[in-house]
């Protein structure tokens, strides 16, 4: 014992040992296989089962995929080609239906000459969300904007946008890129303007229509700012001014301006909307319009005033308690009952209204989570500086709470975007069912089941998967910041 002790005390290492190699059995691919696939009886069984599943999938689907035909004008022709090439009884995908009808899956019944307009709106959307969503890293923002710019421009050109439109688009895209880089606040202003731009691009008509609606917002805002010392009265005055403008002046001003300085795109009826244009229009407008509503509902639900809180809870729980499908039926069957006799606007608008209400309840819950995550000290610091409730919310609480809520908002959007397919049941042309049914109803493409499902499914998957990955990335980032 004492010797050992003496030794440990006196020991000094005079030469360092070189790093030794592990026993040969335990390195490289053999080790990997042993550790990851065959580390025990249970694991081995699982691996074999997994392999069986993979084999089942490949053996069933690969022949069908490898026998696909892209060049044909009807299902019958497809079958004939497959039979010729791979013998009688062979089955194969007839992706010719996608090649022939891709435009309807994407654009519905939009006039082909105007295909560039939804494309441009979709591309510009990335510039609108860039100052909000892609603020974390400059490289990412640049990549997103560059890809969006190039793709939008190229696609619009390919889809036959008129040269004048291309020129305007190029100027706008370059301008927005610069704004995002050098004037962050101005870029945010574009984010607010984007809904009007998108409405004009999608539905067309005179540009003065959307602009005069926008003028109402500006007027209301100006009135509120001018009277802001009066607190809630200023809000009421602003709302009243905007409402008055929209009710009595807006239409006349728009038509006067149009006759004075005509700027217009060909008008496209809501009926022509279909496919992914419809899904994205409904999804995006639902989420955008539900944002302000959701904020108000979330604040109301956290309020200490029982009446206000009760209304918010009732609304939110009602909407969250019923299936979206029933709300869509409300849009198609009941909404006209609730409005003054004689009001009748088209089903897409009615659906957008109901989808907005639907999304706002979920949005409110997401934002409520963000509000709850803010430390109490933030509210106290705002109070101690003398900020009143609305200023504290606007300047201190909401900017932080909304940032925390972004991943949740993206998640809500993914859910909503998937749910837009349900509009098929009120007779709209969603890309998944109604559009595919329509195409299958033609003689040439009777029996084309799998190809449309694969095509639309793949688009949904790519969009939803990338959005969910991005929101996960943001969540991780927020977590790191909070540590």
């Amino acid at each position, binding site marked *: 014992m004492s010797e050992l002790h003496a030794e440990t005390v006196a020991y000094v290492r005079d030469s360092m040992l070189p790093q030794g190699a592990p026993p040969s059995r335990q390195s490289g691919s053999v080790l990997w296989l042993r550790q990851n*696939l065959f580390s025990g009886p249970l694991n081995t069984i699982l691996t074999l089962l997994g392999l069986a599943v993979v084999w089942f999938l490949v053996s069933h689907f690969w022949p069908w995929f490898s026998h696909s035909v892209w060049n044909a004008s009807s299902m019958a022709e497809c079958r004939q080609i497959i039979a010729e090439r791979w013998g009688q009884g062979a089955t194969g995908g007839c992706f010719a239906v996608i090649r022939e009808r891709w435009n309807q899956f994407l654009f519905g019944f939009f006039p082909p000459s105007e295909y560039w307009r939804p494309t441009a709106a979709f591309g510009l959307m990335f510039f609108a969300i860039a100052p909000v969503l892609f603020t974390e890293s400059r490289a990412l923002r640049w990549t997103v904007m560059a890809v969006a710019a190039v793709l939008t421009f190229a696609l619009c050109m390919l889809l036959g946008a008129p040269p004048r439109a291309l020129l305007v688009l190029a100027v706008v895209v370059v301008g927005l890129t610069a704004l995002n880089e050098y004037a962050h606040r101005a870029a945010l202003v574009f984010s607010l303007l984007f809904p009007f731009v998108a409405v004009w691009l999608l539905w067309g008509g005179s540009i003065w229509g959307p602009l005069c609606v926008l003028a109402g917002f500006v007027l209301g805002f100006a009135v509120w700012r001018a009277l802001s010392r009066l607190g809630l009265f200023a809000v009421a005055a602003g709302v009243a001014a905007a409402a008055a403008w929209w009710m009595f002046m807006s239409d006349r001003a728009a038509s006067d301006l149009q006759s004075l300085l005509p700027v217009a795109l060909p008008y496209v009826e809501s009926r022509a909307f279909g496919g992914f244009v419809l899904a994205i229009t409904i999804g995006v407008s639902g989420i955008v319009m539900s944002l302000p509503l959701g904020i108000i509902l979330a604040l109301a639900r956290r309020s200490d005033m029982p009446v206000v809180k009760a209304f918010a809870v009732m609304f939110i729980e009602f909407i969250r*308690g019923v299936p979206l*499908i029933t709300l869509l039926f409300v849009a198609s069957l009941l909404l006209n009952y609730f409005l003054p006799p004689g009001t009748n606007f088209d089903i897409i608008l009615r659906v957008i209204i109901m989808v907005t209400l639907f999304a706002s309840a979920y949005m409110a819950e997401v934002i409520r989570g963000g509000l709850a995550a803010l430390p109490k000290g933030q509210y106290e610091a705002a109070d101690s500086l003398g900020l009143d409730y609305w200023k504290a919310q606007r300047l201190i609480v909401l900017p932080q709470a909304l940032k925390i809520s972004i991943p949740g908002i993206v998640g809500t959007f993914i859910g909503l975007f998937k749910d837009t397919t349900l509009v098929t049941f009120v007779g709209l042309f969603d890309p998944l069912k109604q559009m595919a049914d329509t195409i299958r109803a033609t003689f040439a493409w009777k029996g084309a089941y799998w190809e449309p499902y694969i095509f639309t499914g793949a688009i949904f998957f790519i969009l939803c998967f990338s959005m969910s990955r991005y929101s996960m990335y943001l969540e991780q980032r927020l977590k790191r910041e909070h540590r």
Partner: protein
Amino acid sequence: MTDLPGGQDPPFRLSMLIRDRRYRSLTIQAVVFILVMLVAAWLVNNTVENLARMGKTFDFGFLDNRSGYDIPFSLIPYNSDSTHLRAAGVGLLNTLLVSALGCLLATVLGVLVGVLRLSNNWLVSRLMTVYVEVFRNVPLLLWILVIMAVFTEVMPSPRDYRPAADGSASAQMILFDSVAPTNRYTSVPALRVEHDPGAVALGPVSVSAPLLAFVLAFAAAWLINRWVRARAQARQDATGIRPATWWVTLALFLVPLVALWRLFGLHLVTPELRGFNFAGGMNLDNGFVVLLLALSLYTGAFIAEIVRAGIMAVSRGQSEAAAALGLRARPIMALVVLPQALRVIIPPLISQFLNLTKNSSLAIAVGYPDLRATLGGTTLNQTGREMESMLLMMGVYLALSLVISGVMNVYNASVRLKER
């Protein structure tokens, strides 16, 4: 100390309605209340006017009228002479049936996949990841349509199961010759009772005697089991040694089950081909099978994520701390990891159940007669009572949701960590 000037409570002035904290909140609430009521009154007024213009009334009396339509899938006696109310009841029960079975299947699938995703097996965890991501990121409607198409386009017709002249059939039953999926229905084994003593009347409803017996036996077993466990706990508290109780538990549940099974002569009848159709077993409508499969697969993917997150949320330190105290794997799982993981898992799990129940309204895509299809579909169209049918249907869905989230709130309150 000098006395302060002025009184504590100044007399009430009108400006205090806005400037005084106490009254301001009342003022705002009154204003909000009046505004909401004005909007509500406007909506109701519009509705009344519109109904009057169309010559309609608001009246739920139609629910007592003869429905006049058939429902192909019903859990309670129903025919076209029954009332609309009964049709709605059939629909509600169908909704409940597919939701309950869907929740069960989705949970089993989700737990399995969630655990497998965390396994060390590279291949299996990758496969599970693919399943989860593919099902989560594509609309449920697509899965319903695809599975429906599989059944209508790929599955053989019942006659294909008939052996041809050479004795070979073009289609075979699956799962040990017990299930026969066809393009019209899916034939599964049925449970038959040999010695059926008939139904027992419990007030207005009558319940099949075997079912009642099984429920009672199960309840009794559960109660006795609780008592056995409590005794074992008492023994452990007193002596430090916990007597093994697992075999008592097993016996408590198994013995009555086997005994009753024997007593009533229960047996499974596998479907058999008679002529061009299957008989003997139960022929399940494909709408039901497709909806059930799609709901379970879709929700299962979400549940798998919840389970995985729940297990991962219990930090490694917890099981290490338990191991350092000398606990073995099983008690670590049962006493340390699971209680914490369940706390994280159960609330989102229940909200997935809620989603599944609401999503069951997609039955519309497969023609399964759920609540939306009966009350909100055929009844609505036949009677032209949109307002009443829709309100009633939404009310029922809302009630279902509130019950489910009520259960969740009770659970949350019972497990909330006692924290400062």
